[in-house]
């Protein structure tokens, strides 16, 4: 495909969307179209294969690392355990059997979602994780939404006329913000709003005002990066031929920016937005620790520190599934939004 053809296709993409977003069969030139249903099934199957691969890999890695780096029975017995107790624990948990038998049993149990009980309080490991999940989920969701609400307009504004002084200053500011890790943002927020001004509570989950700082902290992990990508994409899109054509047809600056340039810029930022969830979950661990937030991240840190491995395995399992659900959702959303994804390469 030549350069010119590709550009023509982009214009067609734009027009297709204007005419009918659901018009699946509309194709540009010699490009074949795949039905949405088929594409959806294909995407789900691919993601499912990746998820199975990931779960197998990570749990196997953890399983063997735990047994190679130390004696799990000794961890269970604690400092007070004598030889007799150790033997008893080994028998009870099956640590006396060969490693491959243990591994087989572990895999079979994972299939039926049985991760065992927490070593700390004998509660069901998966139950403990699910208990904490809603809090973390809400935090991630708020941060994700806030991030998009702030990043998309700001990125579009910065990228629309990148050479003006105000926007240059703005871009520099975003660049500096990108250099500030989220945990430092969190500590500075606590310092300013809890310690100096005494406006917001610094720890725990005590009503709506205690959500503000954790959400900002978590959003700050990714917002600068999203803003920069969108701004770069928008400023590139504004130089494209289809924008010039639209301008020649008499479209105003705002129409150009918000209707044409931003739409295409957003499509380029898909991968980043999908990967966001993974980053946000990583960030939520630190955020929850800083703000003493009773979520999954803090449960993970506590159980990792105390080597409570049933809970760690369960938490890693749930996090992987959660990440894959959101990635697949993003994939599917973009199949519906972006007509180019429905086209097979000719």
């Amino acid at each position, binding site marked *: 495909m030549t350069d010119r053809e590709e550009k023509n296709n982009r214009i067609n993409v734009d027009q297709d969307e204007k005419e009918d977003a659901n018009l699946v069969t509309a194709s540009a030139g010699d490009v074949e179209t795949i039905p949405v249903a088929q594409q959806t099934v294909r995407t789900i199957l691919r993601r499912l294969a990746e*998820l199975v691969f990931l779960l197998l890999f*990570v749990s196997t890695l953890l399983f063997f690392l735990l047994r190679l780096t*130390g004696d799990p029975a000794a961890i269970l017995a604690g400092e007070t355990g004598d030889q007799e107790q150790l033997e008893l624990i080994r028998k009870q948990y099956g640590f006396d059997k060969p490693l491959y038998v243990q591994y087989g049993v572990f895999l079979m149990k994972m299939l039926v979602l049985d991760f065992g009980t927490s070593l700390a309080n004998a509660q069901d490991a998966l139950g403990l994780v699910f208990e904490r999940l809603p809090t973390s989920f809400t935090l991630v969701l708020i941060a994700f939404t806030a991030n998009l609400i702030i990043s998309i307009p700001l990125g579009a504004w910065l990228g629309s006329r990148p050479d003006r002084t105000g926007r240059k200053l703005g871009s520099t500011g975003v660049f*500096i913000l990108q250099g500030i*890790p989220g945990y430092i943002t969190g*500590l500075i927020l606590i310092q300013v709003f809890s310690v100096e001004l005494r406006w917001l509570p610094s720890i725990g989950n005590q009503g709506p005002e205690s959500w503000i700082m954790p959400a900002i902290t978590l959003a700050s992990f990714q917002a600068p990066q999203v803003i920069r990508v969108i701004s770069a994409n928008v400023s590139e899109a504004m130089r494209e031929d289809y924008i010039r054509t639209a301008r020649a047809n008499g479209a105003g600056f705002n129409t150009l920016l918000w209707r044409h340039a931003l739409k295409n810029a957003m499509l380029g930022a898909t991968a980043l937005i999908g990967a966001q969830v993974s980053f946000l*979950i*990583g960030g939520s661990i*630190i955020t929850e620790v800083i703000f003493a937030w009773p979520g999954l991240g803090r449960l993970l840190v506590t159980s*990792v520190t105390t080597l409570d491995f049933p809970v760690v395995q369960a938490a890693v399992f749930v996090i992987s599934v959660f990440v894959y659900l959101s990635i697949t959702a993003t994939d599917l959303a973009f199949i519906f939004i972006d007509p180019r994804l429905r086209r097979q390469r000719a």
Partner: protein
Amino acid sequence: MTKNSSSKIKIPSTGSLQLDLGLVMFFVIVIALLVQLIFLGEDFLDGHLRERLKPPGYNGPQGGYHIFGTDQLGRDLFFRVMGGLPWSLGISGVAVICVAVIGTTIGLIGAWYENWIRTTVLLGVSAMIAMPFLVLALVVTALFERGFWTLSLTMGFIAWTAVSRVIYAEARGLLTREYVLAARLFGVSKWSILIFHILPGLRPTILVMAAFFFAVLLIIESALSFLGLGAPLNAPSWGNMLSDSRQYLVIAPWMMLVPAVTIVWSVISLNLIGDGIAELSRKRARAVEV
């Protein structure tokens, strides 16, 4: 490298303001690291409990002048931040070398083979990318004894996935070029093609990724130490200093600000270098096209 020839006094320049600034900022860090390694060592890391939690600029009767103040054990924050340089930069430096080597190798392997090897590489890489990096690093480092090599190698062996995906895409593009086809027709072996024909073309990409990952790994290293699972407890790593500072935010905010500023300085300098190299290679590509 082009010289800035427009002004009379010749300032050496790379042609990108960002890269220049980033390199200058990084130069400061390198000088500080050399000073630390050659002159300071671990001599000044101990503190006097009598001078605990003193503000920046405190002039003590026996411990001397504390330009950045002291922490909860009376340790001088300037010397601790300097002592943290080999830890924080060393750990992320070793890790970024692992990331570049492993990521490039796997990416090239995925790009060369067109059979099940590619399928496996792509499947594995996209699966691993989905796993939050911090979660994996957290869980794995907890199992080993805390130390320099544990931390750096763990991070290096986990973080390469994103690099290999980028290298894979770039390398596949390069493999379709005519000079590669010519080399193949002449019967050049696959490793020779990959190393002598493809790898040089990937250099700017690898440099950009390395600069960004250096920054990312620096942040992750401090984050792990901050969570109490990174560098050994008594090591003066910047994450440990931040972690200590949490309990004294009210009475000694400088304990947080000093390591925070050094982390931000390093990250920004690395981001500037990465952006600058990317900008330069874009400019060069455009110049070739025209």
